[in-house]
Structures are given as structure tokens and as C-alpha cells.
């Protein structure tokens, strides 16, 4: 009897954790395409999550059908990715890293300050969610399989791409862009494509995040979100889509585990938040020491020299 009681209580919690993990897995897959396969350093990935989320919610609020709002969010995220790439990707050095950090902060301050559009720090409520009126009971029980489906489709489409000649060009750019250039590949165009596609994926994750949160505000899009994606990618093994998904799930299992453990530990929530970051740092250090290629990465690759 008691056991059944516990199960019923914990199921929504577990579903929620899996739901968030899936959204972050999608978000991280976008970064993995950029960094893991193409070698692009994007430190402002969260900007595209924010653009996807806000565009979807604000358009829908002003009467645009939900599906079109989502498409617009994805498209705008992709467009911004492309526009950031044009001035930076022609340069050999990692200007992209600097520009993307700045861009993510500009977007966040824009969301905070342009109250006429975004309602500033107050945030906006999500006016409708997919099939909401058809779902009885806990909406997350529908949203989780829906998001999981999106994750699987993203994964399959990306796997198809990275194993194709297109993906081969991306990897060659990551290894040494002089080689694809010497063979007639337009390196700049491929980098833009990777950045646009990666940003679109992040934008889509943003729409889904908004559906889960129901209420979004600029605090949801702090720079740390970008680094969660980085942790997922590095933890699982850069350039490995399955690893990235695994990384995202481990990260969120860890987050929820620590939240759960809080009841048993003598720390305040603020202390616990700091401890969590500390533990993530420790986890990364351990990975770098004992499995530097990431959980699903290939060890042989580390020993190769150029």
C-alpha cells in the first residue's frame, strides 16, 4: 500500500525530470553539431534558446497560430545564427566565441529592458500549448512523450547528416580547414550551415521549454544555460550525438538528485545551489582525468597527432 502511494507521488516528478532532460538534450544536440562536428566555439548558445522561446510565446500571444509561432521562433533563431556567422566565420581565429558571448548577453538585456515587447523582468505567460485542450489531467504526461519524440527525430536526422558527405566536410573543417578548401569545399558556407542548423535546433528547444515552463522570463536564459549544454556535450563525448543525449540526462538526473537530497542535508537552498555547481566542476575534472574523451567518445582519437 505504502509502496504504491510512493510510486504515484514520484511519477510526476520523474516525468518532469525526464522532460527537462529531453529539452536540454535537444538544446545540446545543436551545440554538438557546431562544436563536436564542426569545431565552432559558440559560448552564446542560450541566446537561440531565448529567441525560440520568446518568439513562440509572443507571437502566439498576439494571435498567430501556435504552429506558425514555433516555426517563426525556429526560423528567427536560425537567421540570427547566420547573421552572427557572416562577420565572424571568415576570420580564422575564434572570434565566434567572443561574439556569441556578447550576443547572448545582448539578447538577455534586450528581454529585460524592452518592456513594451517582452514585459521585461516580469516575463510572459504562455497563452496556449500544443493540444492542451485535448489533454486531461497532468499536461506533462503528454508533453514528455511529445518532446521525447522530437528528440528522437532530431537525433535521427542529425545522425543521417553527420554520417553523410555533408557531415564529412564538417569533420574535415574541424580537423584542418585547409584540406577541404584545397579540395574545393566552401568552408565558410558549411560553417554557416552548421551554425544556422544548430541555432534552429536550440530555437526549437526554446519553444518546448516555454511549453514546459508556461511562464518565461529573462532569468531562464542566463549564461550558465550555455554551459550546461557544453557540459552535456563534453561529458558524453564531443562529436557523439548519443553521448550528448546521455550527458544531458546525467546532468539533469544529477540536478534533481541534489534537489532531492536537500531534505537530508544541513544546507540552505542557496548553499545547495553553490554546492551543485561545485559538484559539476568536480564531475568534469574527474571526467577529464579518467575519461577525457567523454563517456561515449573514442579513446583512440585522443592519441592521434596532426
Amino acid at each position, binding site marked *: 500500500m505504502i509502496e504504491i502511494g510512493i510510486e504515484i507521488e514520484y511519477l510526476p516528478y520523474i516525468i518532469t525530470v525526464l522532460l527537462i532532460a529531453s529539452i536540454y538534450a535537444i538544446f545540446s544536440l545543436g551545440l554538438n553539431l557546431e562544436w563536436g562536428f564542426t569545431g565552432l566555439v559558440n559560448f552564446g548558445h542560450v541566446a537561440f534558446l531565448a529567441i525560440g522561446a520568446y518568439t513562440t510565446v509572443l507571437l502566439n500571444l498576439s494571435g498567430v497560430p501556435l504552429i506558425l509561432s514555433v516555426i517563426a521562433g525556429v526560423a528567427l533563431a536560425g537567421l540570427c545564427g547566420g547573421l552572427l556567422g557572416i562577420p565572424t566565420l571568415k576570420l580564422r581565429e575564434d572570434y565566434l566565441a567572443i561574439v556569441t558571448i556578447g550576443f547572448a548577453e545582448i539578447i538577455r538585456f534586450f528581454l529585460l529592458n524592452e518592456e513594451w515587447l517582452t514585459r521585461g523582468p516580469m516575463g510572459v505567460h504562455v497563452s496556449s500549448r500544443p493540444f492542451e485542450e485535448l489533454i486531461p489531467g497532468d499536461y506533462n504526461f503528454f508533453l514528455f512523450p511529445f518532446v521525447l519524440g522530437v528528440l528522437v527525430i532530431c537525433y535521427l536526422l542529425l545522425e543521417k547528416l553527420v554520417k553523410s558527405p*555533408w557531415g564529412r566536410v564538417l569533420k574535415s573543417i574541424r*580537423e584542418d580547414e*585547409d584540406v577541404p578548401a584545397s579540395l574545393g569545399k566552401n568552408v565558410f558556407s558549411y560553417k554557416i550551415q552548421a551554425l544556422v542548423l544548430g541555432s534552429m535546433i536550440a530555437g526549437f528547444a526554446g519553444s518546448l521549454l516555454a511549453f514546459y515552463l508556461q511562464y518565461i522570463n529573462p532569468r531562464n536564459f542566463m549564461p550558465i544555460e550555455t554551459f550546461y549544454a557544453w557540459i552535456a556535450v563534453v561529458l558524453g563525448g564531443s562529436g557523439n550525438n548519443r553521448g550528448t543525449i546521455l550527458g544531458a540526462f546525467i546532468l539533469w538526473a544529477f540536478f534533481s538528485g541534489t534537489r532531492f537530497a536537500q531534505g537530508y542535508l544541513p544546507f540552505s537552498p542557496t548553499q545547495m545551489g553553490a554546492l551543485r555547481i561545485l559538484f559539476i566542476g568536480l564531475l568534469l575534472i574527474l571526467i577529464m582525468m579518467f575519461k577525457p574523451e567523454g563517456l561515449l567518445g573514442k579513446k583512440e582519437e585522443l592519441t592521434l597527432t596532426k
Partner: protein
Amino acid sequence: MPMLSVHNVEKSFGGIKALDGCSLEIRKGAIVGIIGPNGAGKTTLFRIISGFEKPDSGTIVFNGEDIGGAASFEIARKGLIRTFQIPKALTKLTVEENLLLAPQFQYGERIWNVWLRPKDVKRQEAENIKKAHALLEFLGLLHLKHEYAGALSGGQKKLLEIARALMVDPKMLLLDEPFAGVNPTLALRILEWLKELRDRDNENDGITIMVIEHDMPKLMQLSDYIYVLNKGKVIASGAPEEVRANERVVEAYLGGA
């Protein structure tokens, strides 16, 4: 009309004049050797012809088109392919993948084709794999096809460079010391084979080859014509026997050896 003509090209790096009014002409179907002491500007010349470096002045015309200022990938698309003196193997790609990267305008290089025309992509990939295996077989690398290119030896990486360039079916090849570190027997076979490629009566009338090489006997055997570079200038040119007999060359290059 020459296949390639380089006219009065100059290039300085700070105070160093790597190329100082360099001019040469290569006719279609020729195999032309470039020799010169270390630092003569040979690699710089290749980098400029292939668009990896912009000349300070001078013109470069390939197959009737001015390619002065064009991007490296655009020049490669016109059929002018270079290899690297220090081989650039894509280390985390397999040997086979290194070769499969090379063919131009593959269907599968477009996102939509990958998702919507997987059959065409696959068919073309299968053709390219066949071609890659034939090349690898010839170069004695076939058994390594699934190894990471980063695991190859220095000489094998040089072979990989040649194979990758040949996967393109280029109109013209720029080979930068292709035989350095390659075992002499194999080098001779490659040499013969390059000549065959040149003589092949295909739609391109065979291939035009420009090759930098320090190994004089090999270069004499391979080339129809030789340019001698010293301090960024052509100091002599002619058929291999003529060049060998030229006193200035002996002084600048052969004598020192």
C-alpha cells in the same frame, strides 16, 4: 594557350621577399619540375597559385581565366588541386574518409539531398568508394582503409595526400615534394603512373602536373621541363639535360649539394 601562366608575381613577408618577380608558363599536358634551394620560394609560389596566399602583385592565369585573388576553394573547383609539403591528414577521419572527402559536387554535400534523396547519395558514395579503393590498392594502403589517418606514418601520409588529390580528377596538380619520405620503389611506380595519367587520352587530354622535388634524379626522370627558383626568381629553365648543364644552377643548387 598555356594551362597555367604566372607573370611577375611578388610576395613579401615582412622583410623577406619570398617571391621577387616570378614568371613561368606551363603548357597543357606537361609535367614541369620546380627546383631550388630551401627557402627559394617554391612552396610560397604554390600557395599563391592555389589561392592560399594573395600575391602582392602579378597575375596568374589558369586555363584562360585570371585566378589572381580568387579563393582557394574556387580555384580548386576549376580543377587546380594542390597537395601540402607537410602532409595534412585529417587525423580523426579514416583513410577511406579522407579520400571520400575529395570528389567535388557530391549530392550528399547538400543537407536536403541527404534527407530527401538518400538513394542518389548512396549510389554516388558507392562509386566513390570503389574509386578510392582502387587508388588505395595501387598505393599499398588498402589494408589501412578503416584506420584513422592520424595513425599513418609520415610516408603513408604523403601517399594519402596524392591519393586525395587524385580522387578529384583534377585538370592540373600541384605536388609539393610528393616523394619525400616515400620508399624509392613505390616512388618510381607513382612516377610512372603520373606519366600514364598525363598521357591518358581522356576528355581532359590528360592531366598537367607541376611538381616541387629536391630529388634531382627523380625529377629529371619525371619532368618534361624544369624551372629553377632561387631567392624568389626563376634563374634558369629548360629541358632536364639543359638545366643540369647550366652553370648558374649548379652554382645555386646542385653545387651546394
